[in-house]
């Protein structure tokens, strides 16, 4: 069995507890002053507390601070929830937040099927309850060459999958997004073959970096970000992070994935972030970081790292594979 190493953080990068507590106090104060601030200045700043008040989401209790988290500047909550690709609500970047208010993420259940000892339909609460929610601040690299830094809340996918006791025939895990034309206006257009489907190899799914997210910025997921349950695979392009999951299949052969089906020469099954393999129409060597600093236009572009900077943790999964053919 392959061991995964937790990245060693240099001491200088770890926030001391007292600083962390002080930050919480500042945030709390901001939360209390939030409405007053908004009323006072008309244009709400990037104060997370003030923005969060706009979202129909509840606060989540998060335990622990993950060693997998990055301390890079976070994308503002506003940008992370107002600039999304979620084609079921439309193909524009603002369609997901504009056109997802009819979507009802509760109640929710997930059908688990395929090569596992335990299968059937499970309520979301029952899937989540046995686990402690963790916050993971991950880089998110879109295949369109922009990126964000987002504090997700979730559970390692592997911990959830193990409870179903997958058999030795389970070589892959396939995921399916919900398909509700009445609540998702983008489904009226045959942009992709609905429902949206994604998949991972079982070792990728079991990797401790792979997260089953239920929230971001300490609150439940807004509809536009894939409520109530989505996948986050930080070393792969964002389209692998399938949203609003209703079905999980343990399969023996490689599952069909939506983007690969529609444009196979542009989007592969693996879709690992790789600066040396270009998209046919643009380079993947660098990316524009969306970190809320609209005035510093010249500082937005940064180099893209192999496996989105998670090579130390995941490169071993692909030992011996030609990543040019398995893009």
């Amino acid at each position, binding site marked *: 069995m392959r061991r995964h190493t937790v990245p060693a953080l240099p001491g200088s990068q770890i926030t001391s507890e007292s600083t962390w507590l002080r930050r919480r106090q500042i945030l709390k104060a901001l939360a209390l002053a939030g409405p007053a601030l908004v009323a006072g200045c008309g244009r709400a700043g990037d104060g997370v507390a003030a923005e969060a008040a706009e979202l129909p989401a509840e606060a989540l209790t998060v335990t622990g601070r993950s060693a997998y988290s990055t301390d890079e500047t976070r994308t503002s909550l506003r940008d992370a929830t107002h600039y999304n690709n979620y*084609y079921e609500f439309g*193909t524009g970047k603002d369609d997901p937040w504009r056109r997802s208010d009819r979507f009802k993420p509760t109640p929710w259940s997930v059908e688990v099927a395929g090569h596992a000892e335990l299968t059937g339909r499970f309520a979301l609460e029952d899937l989540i309850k046995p686990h402690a929610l963790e916050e993971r601040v991950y880089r998110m690299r879109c295949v369109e060459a922009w990126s964000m830094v987002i504090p997700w809340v979730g559970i390692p996918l592997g911990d959830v999958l193990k409870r179903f006791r997958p058999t030795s025939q389970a070589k892959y895990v396939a995921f399916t997004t919900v398909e509700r034309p009445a609540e998702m206006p983008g489904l009226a257009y045959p942009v992709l073959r609905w429902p949206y489907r994604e998949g991972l190899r079982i070792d990728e799914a079991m990797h401790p970096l792979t997260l089953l997210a239920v929230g971001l910025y300490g609150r439940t997921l807004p509809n536009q970000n894939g409520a109530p349950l989505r996948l986050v695979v930080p070393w792969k392009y964002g389209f692998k992070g399938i949203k609003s999951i209703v079905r999980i299949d343990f399969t023996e052969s490689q599952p069909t994935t939506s983007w690969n089906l529609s*444009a196979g020469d542009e989007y592969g099954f693996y879709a690992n972030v790789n600066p040396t393999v*270009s998209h046919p*129409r*643009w380079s993947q060597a660098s990316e524009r970081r969306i970190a809320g600093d*609209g005035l510093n236009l010249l500082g*937005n572009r940064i180099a893209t790292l192999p496996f989105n900077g998670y090579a130390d943790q995941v490169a071993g999964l692909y030992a011996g594979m030609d990543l040019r053919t398995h893009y």
Partner: protein
Amino acid sequence: MARRLDPIALSKPFVFAACLLPLAWLVWLTAYGDLGPDPVARLEHETGAWALRLLLATLALTPLRRLGAGAGVIRYRRMLGLFAFFYASVHLAVYLIVDLGGFWSQILQEIARKPFVTAGFLAWLLMIPLAVTSTRAMMRRLGGRWQKLHRLIYPLAILAVLHFVWQVKYGETIAVREPLIYAAILAVLLAFRVPDWLRRARRSGAQQQ
């Protein structure tokens, strides 16, 4: 002799100012950090779209005149064409300096290998001789060759529209609408010229016999 009021000459400063409005608006949005989550992409999109709109406006003058708008409309052609070149140059500068600044090796790769970038860059290159020869003195100096040279606007307009259409991601049904609208407008504007081209081709064919 008292000079008659020339409405075209009088309106030119206003047209000039109107052509600067998109730039002023973008400077405003930039200064206030109001360009949205991906500000550089927004700047690229807006400057490119205005270059194309002005290019199409330039091409619309001859058909407009033919449809009875008055011979004077042709006198806006130089200004609109030069503003199209101006916005295309700002567009290119934003892409090269603001967006890809510091990632120089990537620039050459993109221009050489990505068809949509190649098309856009070629369109801009072809605009240079037209801008340089847009003065009255150059018109006189080039004589009949001036018109021939300025027919470059047709292929470069096609390249500019292709540049826009090709950069749309697969499946973006909404995003592809805007470039397709420009493509349709260009097709109509070019269709207006087809009878002329046919007549000219027939005439030069007759001369050769």
